[in-house]
């Protein structure tokens, strides 16, 4: 008998602990368990036992549910990622760009020059804060003269570009 249970019984009833290792006198006919399966099948046949449809059987959580949960989590992550990606492209950049300095925007343009049309690079905003440049969409109309980049700024950008970058832009 289990040591813990033995100890528990010893404290509660030494008599029962003593009896526990000696069997309870209940016996089964010889070969009962070996023949049980056949006997059971016979009873089921005699009674015409039929089982329910199997679609409802639940296999333990460990095997069946986790793959489903993981698939759902992966799908959710994919959707959130896509939403974040498209939101960033369409809205966020435009608003955040208003807070950037011209140095930061120049650096960004230098790194991503290939993504812009030359005419996009040639737009700047006049205004109290000349270090800030609004980012406009390619289709947005602009007043002539108002959004032109000052010659100094263009020269500065061009000076900092390599020959390959210039060739790519042109």
């Amino acid at each position, binding site marked *: 008998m289990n040591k813990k249970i033995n100890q*528990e019984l010893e404290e509660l009833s030494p*008599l029962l602990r003593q009896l526990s290792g000696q069997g309870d006198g209940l016996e089964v*006919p010889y070969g009962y368990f070996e023949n049980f399966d056949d006997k*059971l099948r016979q009873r089921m046949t005699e009674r015409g036992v039929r*089982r329910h449809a199997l679609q409802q059987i*639940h*296999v333990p959580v460990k095997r069946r549910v986790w793959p489903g949960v993981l698939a759902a989590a992966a799908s959710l992550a994919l959707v959130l990622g896509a939403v974040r990606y498209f939101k960033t492209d369409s809205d966020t950049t435009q608003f955040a760009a208003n807070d950037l300095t011209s140095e930061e925007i120049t650096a960004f343009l230098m790194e991503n020059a290939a993504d812009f049309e030359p005419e996009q690079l040639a737009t700047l905003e006049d205004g109290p804060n000349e270090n800030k440049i609004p980012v406009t969409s390619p289709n947005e109309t602009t007043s002539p003269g108002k959004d032109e980049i000052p010659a100094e700024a263009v020269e500065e950008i061009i000076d900092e570009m390599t020959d390959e970058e210039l060739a790519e832009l042109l």
Partner: protein
Amino acid sequence: MPEKTDTDEQLLELLASEFTFERGFGLLVAAYKQRLYWHIRRIVLTHEDADDALQNTFVKVYKGIAHFEGKSRLYTWLYRIATNEALNLVQQRSKHHAGSLEENDAIAVLKADPWFEGDETRLMLLSAIAGLPEKQRLVFNLRYYDEMPYEEMSVMLGTSVGALKASFHHAVRKIEQSIRVG
């Protein structure tokens, strides 16, 4: 008490398919027949009744395995079906208490059973167990014969560990007293 989790999963996989259901059911019967038999036998006492209740248990399992929800261990589900089958049989024989035999009735039943070969002390022990209230008897059998930890029993019976310990202690004292007096 051996953990059956891996085996249970394999059995349920087999039982989940039309092609492997019969094989899975055969393996389930082979895996649990002895354990369930002894659980039932200690409630109904005679071999004939135990055999009847065990067969009925597996018939119900065969018909209802599709409703097993997997929220508990497979044995817990089987144990509940077997317990109900056994208690129904006892109830049919009991004149006074639902789900338990009077000690004198139990002695008569055991003496009439050709598959009881115990001495006078075993006769007193089994009849004292049979005379316990249903819950105490189940707890006593699970602890004394199946050596089940209280934690596992708590999940199986939906009772707190403290309450199970109290039940077991009460049962032990009653049985000892009954044996000594008898």
